[in-house]
């Protein structure tokens, strides 16, 4: 069932993409390619070429892992994308067509569903909340028996 439905979804996605892409493709032909602003840091979590083709799969995989299993690694999380790629002017990844996500997506004419629900701006730092929780802290919820190991 799962396999069948994923094929169905794939077929539907290809169909939808074709329909969505067709008109904008003509309009975009000859137009300048989108220019992307660089994110924070030296490089992205994966190669640029890889990210260009596969970011949606990484995000979808991460979304299901976080949603259903509570896995909250940051490497491929949408929140982390926003942290690094939020535009300098708007502070957002999707507020204007210059912003990181929209630059490509408006060029390719692929509608984005993420920002109906997800925040497009990085988390506002609360005073006193350190970046990586480096301070020592006892576990209030898990006395004694449930302590995880140090990160690998």
């Amino acid at each position: 069932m799962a396999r069948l439905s994923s094929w169905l979804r794939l077929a539907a996605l290809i169909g939808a993409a074709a329909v969505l892409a067709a008109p904008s493709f003509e309009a975009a032909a000859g137009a300048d390619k989108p220019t992307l602003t660089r994110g924070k840091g030296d490089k992205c979590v994966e190669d640029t070429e890889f990210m260009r083709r596969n970011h949606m799969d990484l995000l979808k995989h991460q979304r299901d892992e976080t949603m259903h299993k509570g896995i909250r690694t940051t490497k491929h999380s949408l929140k982390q994308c926003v942290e690094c790629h939020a535009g300098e002017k708007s502070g957002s990844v999707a507020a204007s067509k210059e912003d990181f996500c929209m630059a490509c997506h408006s060029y390719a004419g692929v509608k984005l569903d993420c920002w109906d629900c997800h925040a497009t701006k990085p988390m506002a730092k609360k005073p006193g909340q350190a970046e990586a929780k480096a301070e020592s802290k006892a576990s209030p919820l898990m006395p004694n028996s449930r302590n995880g190991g140090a990160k690998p």
Partner: protein
Amino acid sequence: MSEPNRPESNPENGGRRTFMVAGAAVAGSAIAPGVMLYGIAQAKPADEAVTDKTRWGMLVDTTKCNSGCTDCVTACNTENALSGKTGPQDSQWIRKVEIKNLQTGAQNSLPMMCQHCENPPCVDVCPTGASMKRADGIVLVDRHICIGCRYCMMACPYKARSFVHEPLTEQNPEVPRGKGCVESCTFCVQRVDRDEKPACVEACDKAGHKALVFGDLNNPESDVAKAVKAHASTEVRGDLRLNTGVRYQGI
């Protein structure tokens, strides 16, 4: 309620877990009591899935809950970036309910929210499986596959769910929410996953009422497990046998 969790009785990761518990104890006593190193304090590493060895739950002591106080509601609204408006189309994840016994006249004040049932009717009726229960007992809506049919709202005995009636902006990055999907209390899952208490519990403690006790019901050492063992408590609509994660004391 299911069997309390004993780490050593689990063949799969019991060995590793026991070892780490010992390690934590050594580290703790070596540095300073009650102070632990980074990482060891984490409830679980970020890359590890939640398991059914934990069952998150809450005990509400209605005798300590103040009738005029809405600190838990305010804290919830702040944490989850809810508007705080109370119109018929606005979301309310937690609300204060005032009840009065029709025979005896006895009055109670209590917070009502998603009861995080073991057998949640909302999960049963959801056509796509968007309404789901995590292994650790937290009931959530997977907004990625919620189609907004609202059948779960029809099925919930606690009226715990709200439908987002209009487009939203300024969400909390950790709490995505948007138009056309159903939502409800998550036990502040984003906080629980990093070993913090839900916002409502924290606010109640801060106000000095301490009416809400949160923790792992499966862990006999947790405050909540000790509290439900020590005091008589009841499930709301216990006749439905949903085995709720939230229990009430004093009614």
